[in-house]
């Protein structure tokens, strides 16, 4: 068992989003967090990855509380949020170089390969604001291929992608799971992965809590 949350509780503005939330995810598993708009999926994911400290409960990585091993955990975790984390005045290449460097490596060949795989050949050196919404999203997703994280935490990764993009990303997620990764994700679209998916539904949880 690699990543676990025990007895998580979070409230926002006096409204309990979830309480007594327990789950764990091991290598090879995919966990989908479901729930209606405003049910707390993003909040949960940000708590898990360490961006939101307003919770009670325990989150552990390889048996250790993540709060004590922040840097190690960050090295093994990849988070993709609602916002793309792409500077629009920089080119995809420059954006991804910085991402790599901030994770302690440099590998231009891999960046070019990642961009090619996402269908952005020819766009490596144009500033990102000159791209469409979906293309910007793809630059952001290229980091998935560069990061060598074991745990992926993806918040609505399919946003703005066209049909082909969605299918490819689903394939990548399934492949990651098969290769021993662990994925926690949210999405409102009907996932079609050819690997088993566990589901946590925050709506029913809330129902229980209320």
């Amino acid at each position, binding site marked *: 068992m690699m990543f676990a949350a025990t007895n998580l509780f979070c409230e926002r503005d006096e409204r309990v989003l979830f309480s007594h939330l327990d789950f764990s995810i091991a290598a090879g598993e995919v966990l989908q967090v479901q729930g209606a708009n405003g049910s707390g999926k993003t909040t949960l994911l940000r708590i898990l990855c360490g*961006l939101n400290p307003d919770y009670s409960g325990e989150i552990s990585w390889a048996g250790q509380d993540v709060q004590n091993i922040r840097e190690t955990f*960050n090295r093994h975790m990849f988070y993709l949020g609602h916002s*793309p984390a792409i500077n629009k*005045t920089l080119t995809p290449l420059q954006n991804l170089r910085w991402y790599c460097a*901030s*994770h302690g490596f*440099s590998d231009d060949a891999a960046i070019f390969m990642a961009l090619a795989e996402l269908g952005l050949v020819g766009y490596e050196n144009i500033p990102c604001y000159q791209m469409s919404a979906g293309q910007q999203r793809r630059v952001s997703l290229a980091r998935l291929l560069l990061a060598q994280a074991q745990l992926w935490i993806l918040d609505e990764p399919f946003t703005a992608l066209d049909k082909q993009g969605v299918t490819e990303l689903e394939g990548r997620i399934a492949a990651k799971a098969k290769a021993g990764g662990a994925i926690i994700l949210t999405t409102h679209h009907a996932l079609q992965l050819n690997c088993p998916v566990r589901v946590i539904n925050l709506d029913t949880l809330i129902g229980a809590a209320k």
Partner: protein
Amino acid sequence: MKSQRRTLNTTACLCAGLQRELLLALRSPGNTINPLMFFIIAVSLFPLGGGADTAYLSSIAPGVIWVTALLAVMLSMESLFRSDYEDGSLEQLLLSPQPLYFQLLAKVFGHWLVTGLPLVLLTPLLGLMLSLPVAGYMPLMLGLLLGTPTLNLIGAIGMALTVGLSRSGLLLAVLVLPLSIPVLVFGAGVVDAALNGLPVAGLLAVLGAILALALSLAPLAIGAALRISVN
């Protein structure tokens, strides 16, 4: 093409952060020139508003140059975290496995290199325009050289606190401007002392000490503030 992953040490990572700041400045070359233009124009306003009498100008010169330098630095800070916050890069910075302290230091230093340093180098020209006596140039530049990085660091704290939500924007005024007053007082004091033939080493040492303090503590404050802001 075969992937050849090269591991980088911390220094190399910091250099990459620095490089990104410089790249961002380079992407819109106006951003390096505009603070300077602002500096020049704002300084030129004083003779226009107050009168062009040389004695009058040289009497206000140290104060005016320092105030406008502060303003130029503070305005240039606006861009430091804003876009990173809005596009989510800040989250990634906070989640990166490299030490945040040094990453932030690299970021602020990069910002100073492209806005603060040229401003210092431009000062003699403005001194000329305001008829600053010759004895004032060196102290003015040395003071700015020690003072602007401090102003950058203080401004970065304010920006980090306010970048998240405009509702806390009050903090920028309440926190940052009062904090930078000591720098201004000592900075303008250095020039005044020099013009009156007094020793300036002590005052410069104070500015240096403030800078050392800011260098060691500000990144911690910035980091903490950013963690609050992204939440």
